[in-house]
């Protein structure tokens, strides 16, 4: 795919914009089974990222990702801050000082992000969290790449898997995060974090698709 650092930066900005656009929606989802702040938290974080990215014009891909992670960690708070922060941090650490990203980096980065989130949050699939969108997405991506698909195609498969994952969260009882306090009352509601993960992946895919 050959994504330059400048394109990576643009992609992250696009992700930020989608989060901003969905601030009310994500907050609404969180108000049903959480504390009504997921959109607010995430938008605040990506607002800080937006201010930060221009200062990284000369940085490598790993540094950009790690800085995004640090920025999220230090501005978002709540559960999503450490989780998404760790995700970007780990992706950045894995990818390292590259100037251009290939399909394999996408795979490596997302795998590292997923592992980071699972380690930080101790959630497993079925707990009604980010993991329920991200893990199937990562698996779908890997499978597609193994089957010889392009990065854009593979990410398309990941997006579909994430969307299914979001749908799946409606039917399960939360076992991690605030929603878990609701017990059975969490049934029927889609998970806000899984939803933001889906939105982020979809934006990345659209970005790649636009560019090809």
């Amino acid at each position, binding site marked *: 795919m050959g994504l330059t650092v400048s394109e990576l930066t643009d992609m992250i900005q696009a992700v930020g914009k989608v989060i901003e656009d969905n601030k009310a929606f994500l*907050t609404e989802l969180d*108000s049903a*089974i*959480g*504390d*009504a*702040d997921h959109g*607010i*938290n995430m938008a*605040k974080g990506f607002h800080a990222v937006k201010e930060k990215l221009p200062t990284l014009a000369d940085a490598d891909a790993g540094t950009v990702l790690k800085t995004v992670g640090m920025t999220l*960690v*230090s*501005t*978002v*708070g*709540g*559960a*999503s*801050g*450490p*989780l998404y922060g760790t995700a970007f941090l780990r992706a950045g650490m894995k990818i390292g000082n590259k100037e251009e990203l290939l399909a394999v980096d996408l795979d490596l980065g997302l795998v590292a992000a997923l592992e980071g989130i699972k380690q*930080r*949050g101790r959630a497993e699939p079925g707990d009604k969290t980010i993991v329920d969108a991200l893990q199937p997405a990562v698996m779908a991506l890997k499978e597609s790449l193994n089957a010889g698909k392009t990065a854009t195609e593979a990410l398309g498969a990941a997006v579909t898997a994430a969307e299914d994952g979001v749908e799946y969260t409606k039917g399960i009882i939360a*076992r*991690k*995060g*605030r929603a*878990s*306090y*609701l*017990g059975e*009352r969490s049934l029927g509601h889609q998970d806000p974090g899984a939803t933001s993960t889906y939105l982020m992946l979809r934006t990345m895919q659209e970005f790649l698709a636009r560019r090809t």
Partner: protein
Amino acid sequence: MKKLINLPEQVVEDMLEGMVAAYPEYIRLVPELNIVVRKDAPMKGQVGLVSGGGSGHEPTHGGFVGKGMLTAACAGDVFTSPTPDQILAAIKEVDGGAGVLLVVKNYTGDIMNFEMAAELAEAEGIETASVVVNDDVAVEDSLYTQGRRGIAGTVFVHKIAGAKAQAGGTLDEVKEVAEKVIANVRSMGMALTPCIVPAAGKPTFTLAEDEIEIGMGIHGEPGTHREKIRTADEITEHLTKKVLEDLPFAEGDEVAVMINGLGATPLMELFVINKKVAKMLGERKISVVRTYVGEYMTSLEMAGASVTLLKLDQELKELLAAPADTPGFKQF
């Protein structure tokens, strides 16, 4: 939403500045970082006690910074955990060489942010330990879930661990007594009305004029169920029974009681609740050593209350009785 605030995005800063302006003899503010620190911290050789969490629970946490309780409190946004760098900065502010205990309420966000801060502190050579408060019996306790929430019982952890630190306890000792409190404290609450996060502008749930929410959290999270309002005695009986059965508390036990208002409940109603709790404990021959009635762990302008019982042994009794002098909790 009708609130006495300026910009919603600015409410936490405004509040903290108003708080330190009110109590300069107790606390100072670390600018930008929203950390309230005990005026005379770090205290050489004394274990530091850092807590924090989302804002909107005032006087928790900043109001409990002072002699005999917290050494610093990190204020997150409303109902949002503070961030690791904030917590790390607080740890550094209070580290007097004897280590720092982090008192964390059992919420995913708080746990992770405090954990990351502890890792960072360790990297900088500051010894920390953590305890996690989970006193809310409304939530089912299970190994496979997040477990229970930390609510009003946290104030007893602050008080007692704070007394131990003030008395010169080591980090291990302070942690141990904090864990003893956690093992012996149980709470449950109910709401008459929801609350509104300033940035959200609308409540997370709505209740009809004759409905109450049982077992809700302190962040506007819906509770275990909803029911028609009943008399204060009936509601109190329900909450107190759940609390009593959980530990369980038994005949001959000595306890501390906290009747906590969630923000909009008049003291009058809290005293009505306490009358019933005192009666129930008396009938069960559980003796009340101390009672605290007031707003300690609030949820913005939510109307409602929680009942907390802490089973005391000799050590806890002495530490609970120790003086504390903070803006929000004073005891001679």
